[in-house]
């Protein structure tokens, strides 16, 4: 199956047949994966005499992922070069990176980081779309009292699916597309440190998506995105296993990607690209993936323990058999809190990156900004207990957790100082990316401040478990996270795709989204303040009015989605070609041509002599290119930059 594709030479004159194109590709991956899953499921079903649906399903999911990888050709290299005990030749590596394969390279096990970046981008947008359908269903149901459109169990499943799909999409949304496409070019490398692991991380995510869709046909899951243990374990229909496996496979994908990104940035920076000259986006992505390395293993373990409780009837979380649900809560939130910073840090870094370019001014206090991102990352690991203030677990720890949580506001404040100072007295070219950055800042102020209410024990006492919490995390994850993603999307689209998105539609997208977003979630803040709990399939009469208002504003958000989709579609069809340096940015990706060549830099790798934020600075004196951690000395001004 794999031999024809990999042994073809690059000077292939005639068109390849359809079968040759399809094998190996995602199509063969799906076919082999489905066949493998069905066969294994039948075997396990026979072994358990049909009595343990959870076991059958768990085996089926595992087999699906494994055989999908076989079918897409993930193991071909291992077999060919590992057992053959030789290194791949340069031509073979280029072949694997998609050279000469045209658009098919996006549907194959391709190692080129630019291909993987675009694959992540399309998948992220698709996940957002599916998640938004869940969101609009939720707002539809909550627009009026009573369980009118969906039964409560369907609604609960929709809430859970919206949550977990959006969380997964938000975790990958900046590090996936831009971390893969842009970061290697930004640091002056030709590809990532582990190109084949790059393909692995993407295809694991791709194989993961059908797993969560199957829950719809297996009874759904009733727990919401947090998957709290006694409820998740008790569920008899097997839809809950889909949730657990969705997370287990995703955790593996993220860990692989994280190791790849960290190694790339540590080892493959070009000459002169010291840590002190690194663009802020790289800092944001690296800190985010480092944080995810602490967080995701715990998430994965918690889900493996739930699967064991369900399949093997262990009792990690079952009080009746000696377990305890607080164990699950601590494991989950030890992951869950750093995870939101995994989401937000790259978006904040994008905001900083974009601000410098469009204000034509270096980031105000660049080292202070990087320090604030580091401070946020470090603090975020020790605050998880604020989710457990009223769980009954370990009340004496409430005070230290409250202190740590409130301390995070200090580096966050420094971040705002840096960005406000960047815009102050700049020459601001207000483009669509800038609009989204302004959205990030406005929304993150509101999100961050409302977090203080939840961190403070007396106010959390009236707000915990209510819609105030929901509105707070939407303001931070969507308002700052997703808006940051869109800032990066509009900013890097001309480089990734080579075409110019329509700016009028981009502005329309922003305004519809921001106004709809503010209206929806400020109404939900109010609903939470007057006491509405979360996860309400049935809206009780006292909360009807704010919910109706929120649903009306959500229509604007829906409209903004379609405006954005329309923009992308017409740009692909007949968009203007973009300039190689569309915005006048100074980071390395704007120095390469568009479309970016296979090995990124035509000719030799660049040598870096300064940070990319030296707008308005005089030309630096020629200095030793092996610069120290300090930024290069300027003739007249002070040292910091």
């Amino acid at each position: 199956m794999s031999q024809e594709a990999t042994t073809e030479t690059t000077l292939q004159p005639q068109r390849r047949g359809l079968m040759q194109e399809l094998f190996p590709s995602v199509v063969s991956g799906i076919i082999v994966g489905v066949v493998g899953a069905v066969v294994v499921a039948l075997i396990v079903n026979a072994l358990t005499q049909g009595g343990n649906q959870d076991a059958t399903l768990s085996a089926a999911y595992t087999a699906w992922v494994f055989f999908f990888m076989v079918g897409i050709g993930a193991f071909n290299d291992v077999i060919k070069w590992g057992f053959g005990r030789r290194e791949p030749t340069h031509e073979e590596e280029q072949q694997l990176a998609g050279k000469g394969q045209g658009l098919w390279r996006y549907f194959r096990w391709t190692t080129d980081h630019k291909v993987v970046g675009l694959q992540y981008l399309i998948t992220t947008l698709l996940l957002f779309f599916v998640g938004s359908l869940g969101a609009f269903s939720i707002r539809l149901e909550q627009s009026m009292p009573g369980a009118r459109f969906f039964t409560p169990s369907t609604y609960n499943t929709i809430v859970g699916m919206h949550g977990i799909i959006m969380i997964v999409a938000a975790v990958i949304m900046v590090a996936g597309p831009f971390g893969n496409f842009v970061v290697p070019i930004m640091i002056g490398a030709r590809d990532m440190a582990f190109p084949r692991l790059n393909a692995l991380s993407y295809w694991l995510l791709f194989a993961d998506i059908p797993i969560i869709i199957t829950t719809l046909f297996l009874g759904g899951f009733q727990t919401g995105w947090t998957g709290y243990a006694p409820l998740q374990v008790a569920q008899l229909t097997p839809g809950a296993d889909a949730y657990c496996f969705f997370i287990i496979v995703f955790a593996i994908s993220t860990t692989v990607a994280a190791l790849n990104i960290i190694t790339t940035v540590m080892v493959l920076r070009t000459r002169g690209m010291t840590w002190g000259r690194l663009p802020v986006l790289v800092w944001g992505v690296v800190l985010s993936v480092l944080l995810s390395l602490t967080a995701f293993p715990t998430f994965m373990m918690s889900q493996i323990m739930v699967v064991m409780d369900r399949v093997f009837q262990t009792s990690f979380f079952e009080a009746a058999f000696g377990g305890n649900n607080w164990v699950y809560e601590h494991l989950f939130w030890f992951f869950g809190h750093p995870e939101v910073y995994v989401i937000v840090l790259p978006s904040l870094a994008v905001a900083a990156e974009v601000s410098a370019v469009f204000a034509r001014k270096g980031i105000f206090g660049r080292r202070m900004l990087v320090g604030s991102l580091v401070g946020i990352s470090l603090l975020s690991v020790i605050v998880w207990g604020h989710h457990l203030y009223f769980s009954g677990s370990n009340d004496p720890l409430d005070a230290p957790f409250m202190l740590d949580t409130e301390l995070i506001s200090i580096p966050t404040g420094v971040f705002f100082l840096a960005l406000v100072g960047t815009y102050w007295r700049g020459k601001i070219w207000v483009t669509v990316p800038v609009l989204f950055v302004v959205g990030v800042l406005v929304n993150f102020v509101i999100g961050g401040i409302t977090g203080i209410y939840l961190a403070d024990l007396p106010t959390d006492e009236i707000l915990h478990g209510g819609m105030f919490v929901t509105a707070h995390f939407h303001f931070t994850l969507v308002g700052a996270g997703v808006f940051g993603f869109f800032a990066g999307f509009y900013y890097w689209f001309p480089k990734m795709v080579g075409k110019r998105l329509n700016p009028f539609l981009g502005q329309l997208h922003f305004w519809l989204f921001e106004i709809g977003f503010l209206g929806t979630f400020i109404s939900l803040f109010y609903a939470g303040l007057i006491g509405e709990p979360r996860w309400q399939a049935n809206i009780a009469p006292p909360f009807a009015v704010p919910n109706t208002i929120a649903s009306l504003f959500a229509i604007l958000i829906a409209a903004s989605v379609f405006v954005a989709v329309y923009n992308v579609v017409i740009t692909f069809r007949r968009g203007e070609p973009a300039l190689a340096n569309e915005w006048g940015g100074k980071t390395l990706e704007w120095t390469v041509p568009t479309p970016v060549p296979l090995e990124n830099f035509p000719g030799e790798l660049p040598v870096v002599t300064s940070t990319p934020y030296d707008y308005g600075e005089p030309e630096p004196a020629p200095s030793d290119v092996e610069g120290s951690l300090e930024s290069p000395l300027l003739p007249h001004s002070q040292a910091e930059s």
Partner: protein
Amino acid sequence: MSEANITASTASTAPAEQEPNHFRRVLIAWIVLSVVGIVLWIVLAPFILPAAASNLSSTDDLTFIVLTVLAIPVALFVFVFLAYSLLFFRTRERPTEDPPPLKPRPGLQIGWLGVTGVLCLFLFIWGMVAYYQETAAAATPNTLIVQVTGQQWMWTFNYPQYGVSSQSQVIELPVNRPVQFVVTSEDVLHGFAIRALGVRVDANPGEITTTPVVTPTQIGNYTVNCVEMCGLLHSYMWEAVNVVDSSSFNSWIINQGGHP
């Protein structure tokens, strides 16, 4: 970010005489809007927040009001500086030359860290003091004990001191008498929450958790709901909390079959 914090740049020209003092203008806008915002908030807060019906929830509401008073100038700082920058420092087309670079002085950075640090410390100390005041009261023999059991999807209530259970979906409480809720669950996690009284605690299977001792101060009808996702009918897990005077409470106990 005063004028003094902007370092001299080698390429800049001296500010034109007509150029307004941006920093002073934005500072005035910020101060004026903050004052207006705080006054508006203090006037409107009693209409926005639900009535506090216990000693705990009045402290919680006060904390909410104080936090918002502090939040308004903090949020406006970002909004006003950003809005001003976008209005007065924007260019219509791609700019052709760079403005002078701005670098923060160490004084600004340390001052900023100091102010935010003090704010943060104030929030923490307020929160700790308020919370420990609320939770310090221990149960006395006078404290009414209500045992709460959560089970999908209803709360059931026992009054062990009177040997009686509530016969329907109601908790009856006497006003001005301290009460403590002792909570557990039969099946999965539930969240026992009475918004108006300012108490909430999770109901865990196999564990017993307690709320702080709370004294209802206002007669009225309130609700207890479930704030932790517990399955199919989670959103219907909702019962009444009636705070009445002591003689009505005693009659109610007798009606349920107990002896006051």
